[in-house]
């Protein structure tokens, strides 16, 4: 359940590497109780953003607020977070249990039961004496998740967390995230290439491209925007918009780049739209009915048919 309190706020967060701006003035907000989906292509800046939030990287400029504390003091709240960024890393010569016990001791977390609880949650309780270096990718990912959950965090930062998981693992992960969010109020910031999975759990989205935040939107608003519509490609979008409002008495439309209108009315009577535009002197190149999923929405946002 979303709360108006912000767990994370970034203010014009920028990270440059030489001449390359990996992140460019990103300002976003993750509210308490959100499952915030970070969507972007390879190299868009998702991992860079998560690394800045987790303290692995230092911003070139800008600031961030974690649990209401900004600047240098934000690190004090990092013990309320759980993080998986890139491939999970552990000591190769230790077992799963020993690795988690090491971090439990280091972090001063009370109770040895925490380790067992974390391992059971990700179904790694039977790994015995197997060293981390012998783990499969899926097992490594599960152990990373176990570490992220061990301190019972209020805020989870997950970068491609279902990499390497089998379908059963993906389903379990989805259920676990929903359970943590629903039953424990855990706020989750998750980046994933697998948009169908993201769409099944996210309550808010942030769309990143080339280091810039293109849009932030709630799942409800996105659903509204993606609902079935008529896509009309015309020669003069402003004139067509006027005709829709005056002749058809509707303002249920959006004007998109490239003289395209997205019309949410007259879905059962598209011929009325074509007739009105034609009578108003607007050339109609195409008129088709379309609904959008998250992937198509994102592709449209970045302005092209390119892979995520």
């Amino acid at each position, binding site marked *: 359940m979303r709360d108006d309190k912000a767990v994370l706020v970034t203010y014009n967060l920028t990270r440059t590497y030489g001449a390359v701006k990996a992140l460019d003035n990103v300002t976003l907000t993750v509210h308490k109780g959100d499952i915030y989906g970070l969507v972007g292509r390879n190299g868009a800046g998702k991992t860079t953003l998560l*690394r800045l939030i*987790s*303290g*692995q*990287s*230092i911003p070139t400029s800008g600031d961030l607020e974690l649990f209401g504390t900004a600047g240098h003091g934000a*690190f*004090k*709240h*990092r*013990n309320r*977070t759980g*993080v998986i*960024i*890139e*491939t999970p*890393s*552990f*000591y*190769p*010569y*230790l077992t799963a249990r*020993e690795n988690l*016990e*090491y*971090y439990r*001791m*280091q*972090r*001063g977390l009370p109770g040895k039961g925490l380790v067992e609880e974390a391992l059971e949650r990700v179904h790694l309780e039977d790994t015995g004496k197997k060293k981390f270096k012998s783990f499969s990718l899926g097992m490594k990912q599960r152990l990373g998740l176990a*570490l992220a959950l061990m*301190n019972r965090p209020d805020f989870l*930062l997950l970068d491609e967390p279902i990499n390497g998981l089998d379908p059963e693992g993906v389903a379990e992960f989805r259920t676990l995230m929903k359970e943590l969010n629903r039953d424990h109020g855990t706020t989750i910031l998750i980046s994933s290439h697998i948009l169908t999975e993201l769409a099944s759990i996210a309550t808010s989205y942030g769309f990143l491209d080339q280091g810039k935040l293109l849009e932030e939107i709630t799942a409800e608003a996105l659903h509204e925007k993606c609902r079935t519509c008529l896509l009309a490609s015309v020669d003069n979008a402003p004139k067509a918009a006027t005709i829709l409002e005056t002749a058809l008495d509707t303002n249920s439309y959006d004007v998109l780049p490239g003289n395209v209108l997205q019309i949410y009315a007259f879905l059962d009577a598209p011929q009325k739209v074509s007739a009105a535009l034609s009578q108003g002197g607007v050339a109609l190149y195409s008129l088709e009915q379309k609904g959008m999923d998250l992937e198509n929405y994102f592709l449209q946002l970045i302005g092209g048919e390119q892979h995520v």
Partner: protein
Amino acid sequence: MFNYLSAEIYKVVRRPPLWVCLAAIFAGEVLLLYIEKISSSAVMNFAQGVIFVPRLLMVGFLAAFLISDLVYSNQGKTGTLKNEVAFGLTRLQIYLGKLCSMWVVSIAAVVVVLALYLVPCYFLLDHRAGVMEAMWGLGASLLAALPLWLGAQATCCALCFATRSEGLVWTLSIGIFLAGSTIVNIAVALLGLGPFGPLCEFLVHMTSWLPDSLCQVLFLIPEFNWEGRYPELVRISVDIIQQCWIVGAFWVFVPTLLSLSNFYRKEIH
């Protein structure tokens, strides 16, 4: 810090190389004790067994390199530093935690290794006059060597954080602490061929301040009396001990400050 130290020790004792090295050292000590025992008791006794120890002070540097490796565990390559940073540990805490862990393990190792040698010596070898003098001599050597070892450890720690290459860490550590005076002497010999007189004089003077040179001063101080009586010890001067502490402090603070300032700005992968 206590939590951090506990975790590091938990990790280190689970590293097989630690136990392999201790076993190898113990085997070496058993061999040494055997040789001492079968030597003529007119020559070999407990006091002489004790003053043999300073001759092995340089081993402390090798131990420092190894312990740094055991504690740091090549975190630059394994990527495990990110887990510590992400939980909110400051970079200062992480760095000092690793360094203090190395020191704790080193000191514990010295105590164990010394005990494994001296206790059997006490029971196996004859006791004659000169035991207290020998023990004081050993104590003074250890007091002088301790800061040098701590400095070697701090330098290795600094190198571990600065580079991902284990080979480079070992090469530089050995170069500074085990072969420093040799390298300087070679440089002096080469520079002496040209018009670098004042520079050569400076380098020759600086050689006496290098850790390996100081260690050699320490282990040459106890001298055997080959007539089979108790050893006549040349006492280690307070000046030498002070010099060792100054040199040790240099190798603790300078590399630590340089490496820490670099670590603060570093991207953690």
